[in-house]
């Protein structure tokens, strides 16, 4: 997918692939801003929340709980539970982010499902770092602009499910994790077991828990067979 022709050539497909995720995220951001304002929150709430929390699923859940009358404690707890996975992601991409103080502080805020998937899908350390920062900075900009636009413009987009946008994000992850799954039998069986556990638990436990339980899939990782897993 990402042929290497020279020092800069690999960046072109990277930006192209990232741009598609930025576009889709921007549209989801618009819908987040619109939903929050339509539910009765002032414009600055979704806008500030997106800047300082910067985690789509947690933002939707927290605002959803708030608008459903669940109260601020339940809203924060739900969002935090969903975001516990960023701890595991942060550990996994720490060496990609780098060691400078600024890099650590800024890079940490850019750790999302999409940027981690993009970074880990690259074949070498230089491109992993480029992928993390390019996809991460772009995603941050587009997500927040989208939320602002949605908060100001309201429900102009209508129901984004009409465009199949809800299928786009799982599809992004499919495209990015497939190479790792194809190459590594150990990571494949771990991921299958983990996904099975997560799906089985989803109806029964709070949002955020199933994905964490999926890590139990690593119990069948074994010795890993010496394969590169990401």
């Amino acid at each position, binding site marked *: *997918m990402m042929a290497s022709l020279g020092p800069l050539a690999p960046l072109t*497909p990277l930006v192209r692939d990232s741009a598609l995720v930025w576009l889709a995220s921007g549209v989801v951001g618009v819908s987040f801003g619109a939903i929050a304002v339509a539910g009765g929150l002032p414009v600055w*709430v979704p806008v*500030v*929340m997106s800047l*300082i*929390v910067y985690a789509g699923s947690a933002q939707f859940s927290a605002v959803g709980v*708030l608008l459903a009358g669940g*109260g*601020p404690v339940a809203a*924060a707890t739900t*969002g*935090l539970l969903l*975001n516990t996975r*960023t*701890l*595991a992601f*942060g*550990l*996994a*991409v*720490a*060496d990609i*982010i780098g060691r400078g103080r600024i890099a*650590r*502080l800024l890079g*940490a805020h850019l*750790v999302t499902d999409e940027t*981690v*998937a993009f970074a*880990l899908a690259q074949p070498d350390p230089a491109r992993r770092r480029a992928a993390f920062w390019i996809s991460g900075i772009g995603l941050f900009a587009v997500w927040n602009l989208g939320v602002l636009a949605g908060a100001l413009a309201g429900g102009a987009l209508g129901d984004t*499910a009409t*465009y*199949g*946008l*809800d*299928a*786009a994000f*799982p*599809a992004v*992850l*499919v495209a*990015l*994790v*497939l190479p*790792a799954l194809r190459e590594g039998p150990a990571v494949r069986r*771990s*991921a*299958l077991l983990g*996904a099975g*556990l997560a*799906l089985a638990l*989803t*109806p029964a436990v709070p949002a955020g828990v199933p994905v964490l339980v*999926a890590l139990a899939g*690593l119990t069948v*990782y074994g010795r*890993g067979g010496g394969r590169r*897993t*990401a």
Partner: protein
Amino acid sequence: MSATVAMMLALAVGTYAFRLVGPVLHGRVELPARVQELLSAGAIVLLVALLATGALTEAGGFAGWARPAGVLVAGVLAWRGAPFPVVVLGAAGATAVLRAVGVA
């Protein structure tokens, strides 16, 4: 409204703290290669669980047929080596078409 502000701050600070653990520890705590390998594998396991639950479920229940069908299209396209934009737009397009013809 101050309760909303407190909720946002708690969520922001907690989330940032989760995210910061890895980057702060990096280079200060030396992780064995085996642990580093498991962390990378764990990230893939998390992403696959996210895509599975994201493709099949919505608010704790079944998401309907249109979305997983679209994601299945993405899987087939990706398996056959289609470019990334084709995979993602193929999924959204398939789901949108299914919904347009009345498949939820």
